[in-house]
């Protein structure tokens, strides 16, 4: 910006210079022509000043337009929560995430001869989730792990009221505590035995919400109905399963209370079934230990009940659930109710000072050996037992020489959280069985010993 003072100074200088130049050779130049020249220079300077102002104003307008545009422009972010495209008002979002787990299983001990050491892609799950119109969430997640393609989650949730959110689609029914834990947040690479007895994913409607200022959550729903530990995309019969769960965290808001991290609840489901195929129950090493005899189906009534709790204090964690199932089994024209039970108690402790919770810990210092940062480390131990009625053998629903009616496991492990997204887990699991082998060899299936190492990355 040329100020008036500067302009006058320049004009004076130019006039003086011009006067000097002309005064020496010829004295005849008139004052009028000097004045004309000054006027021309003044005009020229005015023009230059205008041009400068125009340039500045044009830039100012461009900046204003850019700022205005930025107010309504969508933002794209990439961080530990995944890749997100978000409208300026936040009402519309699309989040792209992924969940990748690679497991290596090595069996050893007496029973390892018939088991195959393997490295598998346990879960390969891209995730697309987000919000439309501020109050409608969507979530879609297929899985390409283990060489199959399945839709695991696909639902829409209307969250206009936090006390009554309506979810429709395919998702985890509200029954099992550990099942409801996000796959990447479980303490061990495989969930405990009670989770074998609750549905995995089902299609239906669910109403859920927070009550008593977040101290309680509830969920109730109607689903197609799936066998234990299973998922399906269609209903097996006209019957429906009804599921519900209530979970209390009574000391939740008071972070100073040592019981702040206590949560207790109960999940349940019930419904009729009509000739539904039965699943195989698998060990920690993912081998079937209970396979039903050919032609056995689920028929009649199926009820599941699961008392459950967790408790977290500092780096310490306890999670326990107990599944009680009564299920009608049918072979030919014979049908009877058979009970299945399983419990699980798991303990864990984070050695590096992070707090344990139902979710994964975020390391205080992400792994960076050059700066002496080693992430978060956790040790864990669990025990659990699964057992079914003697009717399983007595009524011919399973063969005592091939199917174990009981399983008792011990698992110990170490979790290394390199950062918030990357985790390496090494678990040693030992499972003993009741039944599942010929009497000639003792009647009990040989114990399974396995070390599973998982490399996991997830951002959802």
């Amino acid at each position, binding site marked *: 910006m040329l100020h008036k003072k500067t302009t006058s100074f320049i004009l004076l200088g130019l006039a003086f210079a011009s006067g000097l130049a002309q005064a020496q050779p010829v004295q005849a130049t008139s004052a009028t022509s000097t004045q004309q020249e000054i006027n021309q220079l003044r005009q020229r300077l005015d023009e230059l000043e205008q041009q400068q*102002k*125009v340039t500045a104003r044009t830039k100012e307008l461009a900046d204003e337009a850019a700022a205005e545009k930025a107010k309504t422009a969508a933002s794209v972010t990439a961080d530990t929560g995944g890749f997100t495209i978000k409208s300026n008002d936040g009402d519309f979002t699309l989040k792209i995430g992924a969940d990748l787990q690679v497991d290596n299983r090595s069996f050893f001990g007496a029973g390892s001869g018939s088991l195959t050491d393997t490295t598998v892609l346990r879960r390969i799950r891209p995730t697309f989730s987000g919000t439309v119109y501020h109050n409608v969430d969507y979530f879609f997640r297929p899985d390409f792990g283990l060489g199959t393609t399945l839709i695991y989650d696909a639902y829409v949730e209307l969250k206009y009221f936090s006390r009554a959110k309506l979810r429709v689609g395919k998702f985890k029914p509200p029954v099992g505590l550990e099942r409801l834990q996000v796959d990447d947040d479980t303490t061990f690479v495989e969930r405990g035995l009670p989770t074998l007895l609750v549905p995995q994913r089902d299609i239906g409607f669910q109403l859920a919400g927070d009550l008593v200022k977040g101290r309680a959550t509830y969920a109730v729903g109607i689903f197609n109905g799936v066998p234990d530990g299973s998922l399906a995309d269609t209903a097996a019969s006209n019957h429906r399963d009804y599921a519900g769960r209530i979970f209390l965290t009574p000391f939740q808001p008071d972070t100073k209370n040592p019981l702040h991290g206590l949560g207790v609840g109960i999940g349940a489901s019930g419904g009729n079934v009509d000739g539904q195929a039965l699943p195989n129950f698998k060990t920690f090493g993912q081998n079937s230990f209970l396979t039903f005899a050919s032609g056995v189906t689920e028929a009649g009534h199926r009820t599941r009940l699961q008392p459950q709790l967790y408790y977290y204090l500092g780096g310490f964690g306890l999670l326990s659930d107990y599944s009680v199932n009564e299920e009608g089994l049918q072979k030919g024209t014979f049908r009877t109710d058979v009970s299945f039970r399983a419990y699980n108690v798991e303990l864990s402790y984070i050695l590096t000072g992070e707090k344990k919770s139902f979710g994964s810990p975020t390391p205080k210092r992400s792994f960076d050996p050059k700066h002496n940062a080693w992430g978060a480390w956790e040790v864990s131990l669990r025990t659990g037992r699964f057992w079914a009625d003697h009717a399983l053998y007595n009524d011919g629903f399973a063969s005592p020489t091939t199917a174990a009616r009981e399983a008792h496991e011990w698992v110990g492990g170490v979790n290394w959280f390199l950062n918030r997204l990357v985790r390496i887990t090494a678990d040693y699991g030992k499972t003993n069985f009741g039944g599942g082998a010929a009497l000639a060899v003792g009647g009990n299936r040989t114990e399974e010993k396995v070390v599973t190492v998982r490399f996991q990355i997830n951002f959802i």
Partner: protein
Amino acid sequence: MKRILSVMLSSLLASALFAAGPVKLLNVSYDPTRELYQDFNAAFARYWKGKTGVDVTVNQSHGGSGKQARSVIDGLQADIVTLALSYDIDAISEKAKLLPANWQTRLPNNSTPYTSTIIFLVRKGNPKQIKDWNDLVRPGVGVITPNPKTSGGARWSYLAAWGYALRHNNNDEAKSKDFVTRLFKNVPVLDSGARGSTTTFAQRGIGDVLLSWENEAHLGLKEFGADKFEIVYPTESILAEPPVAVVDKYAAKHGTTEVAKAYLDYLYTDEGQEIAARNYYRPRNEKAAAKYASSFPKLTLFTIDQVFGGWQKAQKKHFDDGGVFDQIYQAK
């Protein structure tokens, strides 16, 4: 049973009445009406409180008229629009179906409670001796006007210049186009709205003349000092008729239809007209016009219907994409 029902209904009605809280209206307007509606809103709130006992708060949104219309079409939930030209409200009706096509017949004077015109604001002493439209095309004269694509006022200015040229060149379209082309060659900066152009001219010191709404010129004089600027009335100009309308769908959605209608009706009352006149909008009401006659020097005013055959035709020919203005401005 009937008695029970009527008791229940009465209770509901009573609770609804007692629960009636303050009403909020959103008036989406064009750039230079800020001061007018600040005054008017306060007067209307007093009137409405006195009449109904209900408090009313009117929120204002201002910007280039075309831009404001676009915002309403895109979802800005205006209860009322008070824009610079009827074409912009037509666009809201046609594109978003938020009010009926005959909206302009719902209020007197084609729903234009006040009028205005385009005049000149020049620097004190009028150093470039700008007296009429033909002075604006002289080389070396810097003309400040907003972009006709986004500003209603700029469209009125453009058409005023075009109309002047037509009327002085025996309706020769080619000569008018040449005239307006030369005028826009003298425009160094295009703001998006009238208020931005005032800033460019008065605060940034750019240009020799601001083509301005009449009220905006008086406001500039008051705000920036009569020692710095002066108003020049050209021999003739265009009669600008800024229209007003209730946005039916949004008003119904907000439950504000009644108060929104009353708001616009109030613009036609003596008090509404006087507030318009005080803010240098030419009132329709003869009483107010007579009272404030000295504020509005007489000049020949031609209408858009007379010269251009109405807004639809003018818009299509001059301001639609690829229209005459685009040709002129790209040529620049």
